[in-house]
């Protein structure tokens, strides 16, 4: 039994303590936007925010999560899909197959929170998520565009939870 605060909502889940957070989010809580890609923290498809930090939920057991920890998944990033990263992604048509994009978007949102005007080097270091379709060029452009949106003080950006 664990108490999880996911997207601002506290949920009780009945599951073995060594279950990876990813599978609790997907199979117990029913939020399937967070994806399984490798199970060994290599690809980042499972990236969520834990107290604002990007983490790979496939390699984190639910037993290690405290009731006071705040988890945000792609579904909770913005209730209206208007986080600056999402807006930039839409503007540049970043996704191809889209499977890795929840993780990419969560990683990008966390980066921008820490560094609102990231350099290309910052992006190289923070964005280690794999995209097999190879949308990297647009991901990079999308982060810079989102950064501009943030700088412009988009009211939409302030509304977002992350």
């Amino acid at each position, binding site marked *: 039994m664990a108490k999880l605060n996911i997207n601002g909502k506290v949920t009780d889940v009945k599951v*073995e303590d060594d*279950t*990876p957070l990813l*599978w609790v989010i*997907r*199979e*117990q809580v*029913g*939020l*399937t*936007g*967070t*994806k*399984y*890609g*490798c*199970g*060994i923290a*290599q*690809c980042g*498809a499972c990236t969520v925010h834990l107290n604002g930090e990007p983490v790979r939920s496939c390699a984190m057991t639910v037993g290690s999560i405290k009731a006071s920890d705040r988890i945000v*998944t*792609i*579904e909770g*990033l*913005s209730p209206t*899909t208007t986080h600056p990263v*999402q807006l930039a*992604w*839409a503007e540049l*048509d*970043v*996704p*191809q*197959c*889209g*499977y*890795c*994009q*929840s993780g990419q*978007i969560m990683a990008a949102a966390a980066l921008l929170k820490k560094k609102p005007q990231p350099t290309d080097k910052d*992006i*190289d*270091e923070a*964005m*280690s*998520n*794999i*995209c*097999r*379709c*190879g*949308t*990297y*060029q*647009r*991901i*990079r452009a999308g982060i810079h565009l989102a950064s501009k949106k943030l700088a412009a003080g988009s009211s939409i950006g302030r509304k977002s939870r992350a």
Partner: protein
Amino acid sequence: MTRSMSRARLSRRGFVVGSAAAGGGLALGFHVPFLSEAAAQKAADVASQGAEVNAWVFIKPNDDVIVRIARSEMGQGTWTGLAQLVAEELECDWGKVKAEYPTPGQNLLRKRVWGDMSTGGSRGIRTSHDYVRRGGAAARVMLMQAAAERWKVPVGDLVVAKGVVAHPPTKRSISYGKLAAAAAKLTPPDEKAIKLKDPKDWKIAGKGLKRLDTAEKLNGRQIYGSDLKLPGMLNAAIKANPVFGGKLKSFEEAKVKAMPGVKHVVKVGDNAVAVVADTWWHAKTALDKLPIEWDAGPYAGVTSAAIAAQLKEGLTSSTGVFTLQKVGDVPAAITGAAKKVEAEYSHPFLNHATMETMNCTAKWTADKCEVWVPTQNGDASLAATAAASGLKPEQCEVYKIHLGGGFGRRGFQDYTTQAVQIARQIPGVPIKLMWSREEDMLHCRFHPVTQARLTGALDANGDLTALQFRISGQSILASVRPEGLQKGMDPVVFQGLHEKADAPFGTFGYTIPNLLIDHAMRNTHVPPGFWRGVNHNQNAIYLECFMDELAHAAGKDPLEFRRKLMAKHPKHLAVLNAAAAKADYGKPLPAGVHRGICQHMGFGSYCAGVAEVSVTNGKVKVHRLVIAVDSGHVVNPDQVAAQIEGSVAYGLGAAFYQESTVKGGRMVEENFDTFESLRIDAMPKVESVLVPSGGFWGGIGEPTITVAAPAVLNAIFAATGKRVRNLPLKNTKLA
């Protein structure tokens, strides 16, 4: 069958699965897991309102136009591109266009009205552009006829734009939504007699419009196969014998039966075992604990080294050899050469490694079998379902779901077969089978393994007088589709090397007075398959890197050396020139940065690339990659650019890091820690140069992957003086 009946059947599919958000207005696009059955039925009833004007076009009373897309969307953008082509001829409002998949079962029932559903070989648009445009045009003709009959005016007096038909003399107008029901009752026109628009008059096609499938991919709402949840569904994890050709001997069900959530442990086919549980995590956890005894089969001793030796023998052998091109007298020209250049190259097995692992959900009863599957070939999924279910194809149905990556992997239906084999043992219960990454890495139809030996003859002027090009290695067709062999020869092995301009497998771009291209077929026990770019990948590396070797041996500039051989191949040459011009070829680069150039033609499109690379302490940095392509027509330039960018990442990832190696008859690499992908830090700046010359329809999902690696490898030589002839690059020390 009447149209209304077919519509009702189509709607049933929507009742069960749809990928778009609930209430999005799609005929089929809502998702039952979040709705009660009653709510879902109500949504289905609302969604099915409207009329099917023809197989391609369904119009709702609110003027929403739903375009049927027979090909699969795996990221390549065909969902949007095909809709643009239909909408262009339909003359509808693009802002009201949505798309949906017809089902393979419906396609069978309606005498294949949607044609080929197979989505591979970059054929999504290039082989269906004509009939989908005619479908859109025929619907337009019917809608206008319906307006003419309604107003009792000659159809010639009507005009149409953005889904509104107008009669200017009386200033009347009416939208498609109000005409669709009447139009659907009219006799369809002869589609072949319809004159299609000249592409220069396109308003929707040819434009870089936004994709139709982006919104749901930004907030987690896109439902992939692995996300599917059906009422009463159980989850399955599977292990097949990792040794190709091996079998399952036994397993100890009792050891895991009491583990949390476990419901069943079942044998699957003759080589696999699955655990079925309440959740996938429970299934996988129990499977990892399940004692399994394998029969390793006849290939348990095979290694990569043994396969390499087998291929090496083929480089000089005269047995099992098939000749593609033989011009002049190559041995004589080589003997008489002023300079002879020789080199051997090799290319490894590769897994596709789609981000979403293989998965399929199946529900079997004694008289019906349904599957929900991300597939590149809906027709093949239906055939696999019928075969595994023991039912007739008419008793089966396949619901297609957007793919979390394809790259050729999901044309093969082994995972669909497995899901049905499991579901058949648990009647009436939907079973979602999902592979772990490890299972996905071990079981694939791998990019075939080949080697090449090239010999070139240069005369005293440094001109190429002869080329001998021997490929040794696996044939995909011999394994997958032996009926496609031509007197034993696999024409697909020679992709990009064929002589005729209309060759389906890509045309050689050079004229060489003495030329011999042949293949020593050396098959292995590892199942080969089609991997984005297929044999073009290594053929372009072999040929274009060797051309670079020849140019350097001749003391000539690699671009000039090629140009001289390409005079009779103007389309190849024009694209090469376009890439060179955009890249400022010949102009100085910053200190330490070096260029490489190449060209290749495949999947109906002409491509060329120029790379700018530096190598510092053995570490390669690709600064810029200019890629030009002539695909004849361009349906969506922004998505063509996206495919070029993506193909670079896929191609360079393979060239830099990837190989699936064989030990003990099985693959060694099991996850992304040992099968590395290109990541953002290694992604070069890609500049796409679109030079469509019209008059033909080339593909775009694959062609440009062929020029990414050779351009970079040639630039690495320019930077270091070292030739990388054995892929992947990680095995060559550059420092």
